[in-house]
């Protein structure tokens, strides 16, 4: 059924192929160079007898007349045990293995299997002969790191099938057939320990989708308290260059309260991926005590790698995320950056000579972004357990201007917006999430009314600050001035966090509740000062003391004594009120 075509045109990484027989949209084809090397490509448009394919590699050397072999299959990934801890490129080639074979440089047309074929897994059956099952049901488990990795009935199996045979507990490699199923028509289906799934199709083998309500803590105060994210929610972090998007994503990948983290480095600097690559194996996951790498998977399609594979990389990421969700796990997908992915779409659209939309992005940009974020969510699986995929996309708007198409299209479909600002990062206020412009539709760990109140103080303080720039400190009343100082206090001791401090880098949910309660109390305390200088002096000291408080371990004696010290000093200025 697979057709063969001939190249008739080459334009950048787009080839036009004349074919006979049938060709499917998004089908994979291999373009054969005269040297024999085959380049992976994907059909993106069909017109009459011509199919247009984007090539996932450099097209140097392709000629008119070169052959293209269509595979009859959509662009797919391998799903099975052994995915975690790996580093893949956008097409799921394991990069370390490629490096072993090819050395320093990536070689064109070199593809390796994603899952190790010779590794043995200890399989424990969960289903028995005669059971009725359907796509996504568990047949058995193998231990993968800290998880029980479920070996499931292939997702594409629809309707009820019967287990005809299943292997007993024992060691198997992924290629081994572990079960044979029989469908209603009596057709036999062999089940291996891995399956393939097309990346652009969401996995829907669950009972129902639930509303994301449970907070997903990141141990970052400004996020968890002010702009919370829910398990199964979607959020974005747009920001100009240098505002700390990547540092923020690295913090999230370390401290997020999830089972599996998938980092999709999409068209960004290789150097940043290398940091994660080299540092994560050394770091411990505070939840399990094991290496952080054990729960992490990196998909790395850096900016210099071919642009079409960049587009595939976010889909590869989200498909693997959905796969682990099917095991009842909570997965966080961090995509850095979705703008590069959108630019990849723009490049292809330009080559296809489609009528451009705003800033030359294709007209389908919005729907493409929307359907990507919609793949996040909490689901109830058929065995009653729940799993979730939370998606965080960082956005790199041109010129740091949020009014551009990618940011706007993203804002429409996400549940939380953590806007990073150049102004705050220039002031060295980290994380540079803007407290007045950002928003979240999810419920957090702290009572909403109190958080709202705290935001009002920030807004009021900001107003006073703007006014002071015009009328000067002299023209500002002492009450307004105190409001301003209080908002600055909240900003410096609560919103800001020292990412490089061993304790302050992560603030647990319990600690946040405790500290927020105390800080909130201070904000609501009426205070009286003789003049502005003494007010400023008091808040400077209070800020210093509270920052020290943030830097000591929760529930240590020092923590208690510093807290006492803070409240004693607050009592000093409230005596006369």
């Amino acid at each position, binding site marked *: 059924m697979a057709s063969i075509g001939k190249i008739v045109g080459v334009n950048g990484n787009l080839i036009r192929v004349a074919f006979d027989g049938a060709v499917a949209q998004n089908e994979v084809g291999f373009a054969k160079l005269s040297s024999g090397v085959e380049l992976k490509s994907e059909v993106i448009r069909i017109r009459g007898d011509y199919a247009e394919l984007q090539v996932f590699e450099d097209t*140097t*050397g*392709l*000629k008119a007349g070169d052959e293209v072999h269509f595979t009859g299959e959509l662009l797919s990934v391998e799903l099975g045990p052994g995915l975690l801890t790996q580093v893949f490129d956008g097409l799921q080639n394991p990069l370390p293995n490629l490096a072993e074979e090819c050395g320093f440089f990536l070689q064109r047309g070199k593809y390796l299997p994603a899952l190790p074929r010779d590794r043995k897994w200890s399989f424990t059956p969960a289903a028995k002969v005669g059971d009725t099952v359907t796509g996504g049901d568990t047949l058995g488990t193998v231990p993968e790191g800290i998880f029980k990795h479920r070996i499931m009935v292939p997702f594409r199996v629809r309707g009820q099938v019967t287990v005809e045979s299943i292997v007993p507990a024992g060691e198997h490699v992924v290629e081994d057939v572990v079960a044979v199923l029989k469908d209603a028509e009596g057709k036999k289906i062999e089940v291996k320990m891995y399956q393939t799934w097309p990346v652009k199709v969401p996995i829907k083998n669950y009972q129902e989708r639930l509303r994301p309500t449970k907070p997903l803590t990141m141990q970052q105060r400004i996020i968890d308290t002010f702009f919370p994210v829910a398990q199964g929610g979607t959020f974005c972090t747009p920001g100009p260059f240098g505002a700390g998007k990547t540092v923020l994503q690295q913090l999230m990948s370390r401290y997020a309260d999830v089972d599996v983290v998938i980092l999709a480095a999409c068209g960004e600097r*290789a150097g940043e991926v290398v940091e994660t690559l080299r540092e994560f194996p050394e770091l411990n996951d505070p939840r399990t005590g094991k290496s952080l790498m054990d729960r992490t998977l990196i998909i*790395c399609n850096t*900016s210099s790698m071919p642009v079409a594979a960049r587009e595939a990389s976010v889909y590869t990421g989200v498909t693997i995320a959905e796969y682990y969700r099917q095991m009842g796990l909570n997965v966080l997908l961090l995509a850095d950056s979705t703008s590069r992915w959108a630019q990849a779409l*723009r490049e292809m*659209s330009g080559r296809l000579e489609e009528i451009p939309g705003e800033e030359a992005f294709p007209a389908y940009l919005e729907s493409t972004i929307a359907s990507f974020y919609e793949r996040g969510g909490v689901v109830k699986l058929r065995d009653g357990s729940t799993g979730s995929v939370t998606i965080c996309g960082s956005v790199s708007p041109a010129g740091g201007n949020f009014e551009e198409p990618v940011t706007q299209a993203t804002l429409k479909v996400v549940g939380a917006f953590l806007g990073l600002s150049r102004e705050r990062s220039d002031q060295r206020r980290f994380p540079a999430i803007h407290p007045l412009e950002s928003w979240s539709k999810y419920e957090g760990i702290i009572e909403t009314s109190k958080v709202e109140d705290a935001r009002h103080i920030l807004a009021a303080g900001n107003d006073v600050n703007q006014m002071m720039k015009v009328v000067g400190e002299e023209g500002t009343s002492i009450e307004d001035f105190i409001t301003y100082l209080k908002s600055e206090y909240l900003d410096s001791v609560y919103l800001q966090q020292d990412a490089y401090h061993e304790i302050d880098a992560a603030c647990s949910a319990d600690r946040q509740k405790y500290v927020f309660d105390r800080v909130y109390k201070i904000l609501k305390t009426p205070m009286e000062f003789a003049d502005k200088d003494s007010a400023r002096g008091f808040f400077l000291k209070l800020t210093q003391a509270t920052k020290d408080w943030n830097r000591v371990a929760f529930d240590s004696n020092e923590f208690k004594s510093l807290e006492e010290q803070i409240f004693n000093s607050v009592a000093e200025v409230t005596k006369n009120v």
Partner: protein
Amino acid sequence: MYKVYHRIERIAGSVITVKADGVANQELAQVTSAQGTSLARVIRIDGDMVDLQVFAGARGIATDSQVRFLGKPMEIPFSDALLGRVFTGAGVPRDNGPAIEENPVAIGGPSVNPAKRIIPKTMVRTGIPMIDVFNTLVVSQKLPIFSVAGEPYNQLLARIALQAEVDVIVLGGMGLKHDDYLYLKDYLDQNGALSRTVMFVHTASDPIVESLLVPDASLAVAEQFATRGKNVLVLLTDMTNFADAMKEISITMEQIPSNRGYPGDLYSQLASRYEKAVDFEGSGSITILAVTTMPGDDVTHPVPDNTGYITEGQFYLKHGRIEPFGSLSRLKQQVNGKTRSDHRTIMNTMIQLYASYKETLEKQSMGFRMSNWDNKLLKYGERFEKEMMDLSVNIPLEKALDLGWEILADCFTPEETGIPSKMINQYWPKKG
């Protein structure tokens, strides 16, 4: 052995179209017309119509000019004989020396496997305090110099080239003024650095296509040296001209522009060049410094904006000085903890005090009375600008740190600087 074509179907800008069979994408061809011979490369194939970009431009090419396909993509010769030589972007000598033809390597080669990269760890010493102390340059870093026309960016590049402790310098000039080209060449020559330099130069009057080839040629040569264990510094000036050349070509090719006329793949194009910066595990390295002039001093212009997202920081060159604010080396944290124990202290303290000085200047210009503290800051700011920021200052890092302490001690008491007392005890100059 190669087929020769005599019929040119279309000529637009520097792109010509011929009817030909069996031609490969990116293949090189020789175009001979009454104006002479030029190389060209295939950039689009549509059926039997082949678009070629003519390096020397299409001026004077006739419909019956001769096109001979060479059956190979663009290559650049590589050998140690390249050192001390000057070439055009197409690899033709422009210094009257002999042509080099040995060991050709393809340009624009594949990207480095991220799994083979290592975390950068070695500082590049430049003798410029604003770089060494405040925004340390690191081996394998890619860093642009954001500047505007008229600033001495080429002088800065030349000085860094001269003083950086590297094995090989590759200088790529795009749209260079001829004077600037001669200046760079003479400066390196006079200071004895030409013998470890390879230059690929496209001057403003040369055909625009050659400008496109300069970064690729420079980086291909750099990669060859680096995989042979050499530490290479690549200097590119000016990347905005490179981007403008891309713009020109893509518009002649009738491609849909994305932002201010630049092609939609500007980011990918710039990134694929900058990402060549690398530290090879167990071998050499490539460090890239690239001038990017900002049209209208606007950092949100597509070229500096896209560059900022790709590179690991930036230097702002303004009013003949590297601005301490806005300039950033993202990799400095990797190295400045290991130089001298006071490096970070001096770096942070001096910048904070300089920021206060700027505030005082503002107050002064508004006519406020200067307090005692303000006067101290004014004295400090002046010394800082003159002895640290000025580009003519040329001292090693350790001397610069000592100078930092001396300036601080001259202007302030230890408490006023907010430096931890442990540091003060160790480094504060004793009056004597």
